[in-house]
């Protein structure tokens, strides 16, 4: 994940210039580039799109997916929506949180992984579902959790 760079942020904005409704695509790319949406990025995007900081902040803070702080090297999203709950996702989630020693939204002390809740991945048929670094994972159980832990180096 790159550290903050205004030039890179401006380049992201430039890539989307001329596009209708560019704000969300830009924010996604900013998060992809830096792992979160830093306040400096809000200023740059607002200036480039001729919006106010308030407007961009309103959008960023509305979507839980946009992070207000840097994430770990890996991001694990655990589904907490109804279908997964009915298949025992809460227990699996608790197991993971305990194992990594974090609360929802936190990053492990070594910066290895951030665990975030998500409300439906559209993967209900394979509940409980998760997503690691953008890759969907189905049928969470102890074994799968072990795999995940190995993957993130814990």
């Amino acid at each position, binding site marked *: 994940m790159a550290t903050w760079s205004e030039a890179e942020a401006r380049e992201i904005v430039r890539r989307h210039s001329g596009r209708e409704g560019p704000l969300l695509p830009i924010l996604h790319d900013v998060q992809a580039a830096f792992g979160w949406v830093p306040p400096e990025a809000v200023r740059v995007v607002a200036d480039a799109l001729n919006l*106010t900081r308030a407007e961009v902040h309103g959008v960023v803070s509305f979507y839980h997916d946009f992070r207000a702080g840097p994430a770990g090297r890996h991001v694990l999203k655990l589904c907490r929506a109804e279908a997964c709950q009915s298949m025992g996702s809460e227990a699996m989630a608790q197991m993971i949180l305990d194992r990594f020693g974090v609360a929802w939204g936190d990053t492990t002390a070594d910066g290895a992984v951030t665990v975030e809740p998500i409300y439906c991945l559209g993967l209900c048929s394979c509940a409980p579902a998760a997503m690691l670094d953008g890759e969907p994972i189905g049928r969470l159980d102890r074994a799968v959790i072990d795999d995940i832990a190995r993957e993130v180096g814990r």
Partner: protein
Amino acid sequence: MPLVQETDYGTPASTSTEVVGLTIDGIRVTVPAGTSIMRAAMEAGIQVPKLCATDSVEAFGSCRLCLVEIAGRTGTPASCTTPVAAGMVVSTQTERLKQVRKGVMELYISDHPLDCLTCAANGDCELQDMAGAVGLRDVRYGYAGENHLAEAKDESNPYFTFDPSKCIVCSRCVRACEEVQGTFALTIQGRGFDSKVSAGMAESFIESECVSCGACVQACPTATLMEKTVIEIGLPEHSVVTTCAYCGVGCNFKAEMRGEEVVRMVPAKDGKANHGHSCVKGRFAWGYANHRERILKPMMRERIDQPWREVSWDEAIGRVASEFKRLQLTHGVRSIGGITSSRCTNEETYLVQKLVRGGFGNNNIDTCARVCHSPTGYGLKATFGTSAGTQDFDSVEHADVVIVIGANPTDAHPVFASRLKKRLRQGARLIVIDPRRIDLVRTPHVEAAHHLALRPGTNAAILNALAHTIVTEGLADEAFIRERCDLSAFAHWAAFVSEPQNSPEAVGPVTGVSPDEIRAAARLFATGGNGAIYYGLGVTEHSQGSTVVMAIANLAMVTGNIGRPGVGVNPLRGQNNVQGSCDMGSFPHEFSGYRHVSDDGVRATFEELWGRPLDAEPGLRIVNMFDAALDGSFKGLYVQGEDILQSDPNTHHVAAALAAMECIVVQDLFLNETSRYAHVFLPGSTFLEKDGTFTNAERRINRVRRVMAPRNGMADWEVTLAIGKAMGFEMPYAHPAEVMDEIARLTPSFAGVSYDLLDRVGSVQWPCNAAAPVGTPVMHAESFQRGKGNFMITEYVATDEKVGPRFPLLLTTGRVLTQYNVGAQTRRTANVVWHEEDVLEIHPHDAEERGVRDGDWVKLDSRTGGTTLRARVTDRVAPGVVYTTFHHPVTQANVVTSEHSDWATNCPEYKVTAVQVAPSNGPSDWQREYGEHGRKNLRIAAVVAE
């Protein structure tokens, strides 16, 4: 007078001309199509409960209180977002709605502090009202759940507080900031339970993009956003509608009072210039009226190096009269004169000029409008026949292409700027002609199509090049010209602008603007629909000020943009009553209504009514007064409400002239800079303390109403009467209304104006007479005031103020939002938190060349003088141009400005001075000397208790 309670219709009025009939609670209602059910109900007197709706912003539909039932439709739609339909049958009160509303209120109140009795909004809270309206008796959810009651208050803004614990997240503040003010400084942060109003990106209000216009505070239905004065004082018990005394927009306000104490100033919804909006100055910066530095007793001294001594009104007035009479006996009738103020009322201004013409027996009367908009009067009279703007402010709602030249509306005319920005967001195009990148060039949701960043002093060249493009490319509105304009003048002018030296290509190098940009702007203006031109002091305060005003008029005529809504020539007047002070006969050569003093017929009507023979010779202009003072022939001056030492150009020269006079009488709120040289100081009263009228930039005569007794004991108009009486010139009026009656009698364009009319209709735009009994919003509709529109030749002549090796940069000046002119008032309010000193804007290139860093002290020198101030390095100004504001006396910007002035009117050329900038480590010699002088000459002797 009770508290004015404005009706809130919930949603804005529909402009549709089609009408729709429906039934609401059994009552037949007919409203324009597109009206919301909520508004239709309110128009029939039926109040639908609501929280998130207010008629200054579009419907939002979030609070779920205004639900109604409609026969034949399922569900309970929100009445604010549901438009009326023909034959609709609506019920606003049913058992089902009662239950729903009660349930919604329970949710709101379960997360709201129950401190109504000690809440600042107690008695003025819509949440409280709605709890009552829906019959809330208990909250089934209890109060123990998760809530926002511990949220911290933001008290960073000097004028209002933000208390999120009381917020119901109705978004009214966010929408008011967007829709009314156009600043977009607020948002709703987060979602669901975490939703919270946020200024900027979770910043404090003071650090955010907020401009403190107060629109959010006004829109807030609870105590979440609340004026600090209401928190301190409590709610007002009565209100008086009056007019703001800052800029030329002329906003109407309700002065909400507790006894004689102002609790708050709230913009009036039926104010025809502001329609319920305000800026930080009018809304909040009125505290100077009670500032401790205000002088409340008359003072005198024999010599200007003596301390001031407080005296009685009789003694002070007696001294003025005896000194003025002595000077006239010794040095002649024309050795004294007066200066009227564009800050004072029409009536006061009229009386001062009457005192001079009738009482002093000469025409040595001038006004501070001399130094701002005198070229407007001259230029528009020559071309159109009337010394005034052609439109009302509402006209901007119909404009398609707007030129803003030499004006910075977001700072200097903020309420107009909000209206302009609204129109621009609706799709109108903007052309900015200004040396500096003013906010309008690019500000959230607004971007100018063209910014012609010309070199200061080249306005005429640019306007000629725009006209050249229009004429030579066949874009002129020939039908309009043929019907409305003087054809021989047009032919002559068209030949002139078509000459090659006026082409964009020839003008480009002179102005520093690319010819393509000039051509593109000209094509846009000529072909983009309704074209309106707004201009300010960046046009008038030049050696070619009058020329450029005429060039603007030419441009409007050649494109047919005169005589209907959405077009026109619109001077943005700097002060509240610039238009009025000019109308009232403040110039040495003109009686009220711009009629020359040498006109025997006109003079006879004044002589008859005033009972005095009047001088047929024009008197001295301000600059001539100074020159005459230095050559010993001008000895006495009565200055009402203008700080000539700080505001006139070339301070050294003005100071020397003032020092040469024997009796200077200053009438002002504070010991201003001019009073260093004064012999008699007469305390003035604020706009809150007097009755009268101001005439704004759109010729609108607005009432100023007294809300408290004059703190100094006499209103300004009474002081002028007293001077007249002591000099043997009685002006017997019991009330300013009688002064207006006299103005109406003597001035054809004011013939129909009376306080009675103004009280009935609110305000009128002159001409107001038998032909136009309720005034004239748009002038020259059928034909020009002078008959045919007159194209004037406007050859570009470079100013004599030239850059050279010693003075390679051009200085231009302007204002900031929170301060006003010489700052006498705004510097004495909390507005100083935003602008505590004047700074010099300089381009990074010029700064680097001189080793100047951001925040450094720099010395600013011109041929006239030098001063020091801090530098701000910014690319808002072009290389070769520097810029400063002139709000602070310590900066003394006018020590630097030159003696050049408009060829026709002597309006000083403040906007172009050749300067040099160099690093510095402290105040200039002049600043030190001046500071010392002030410490000596502004002393007031301690009053010894008897």
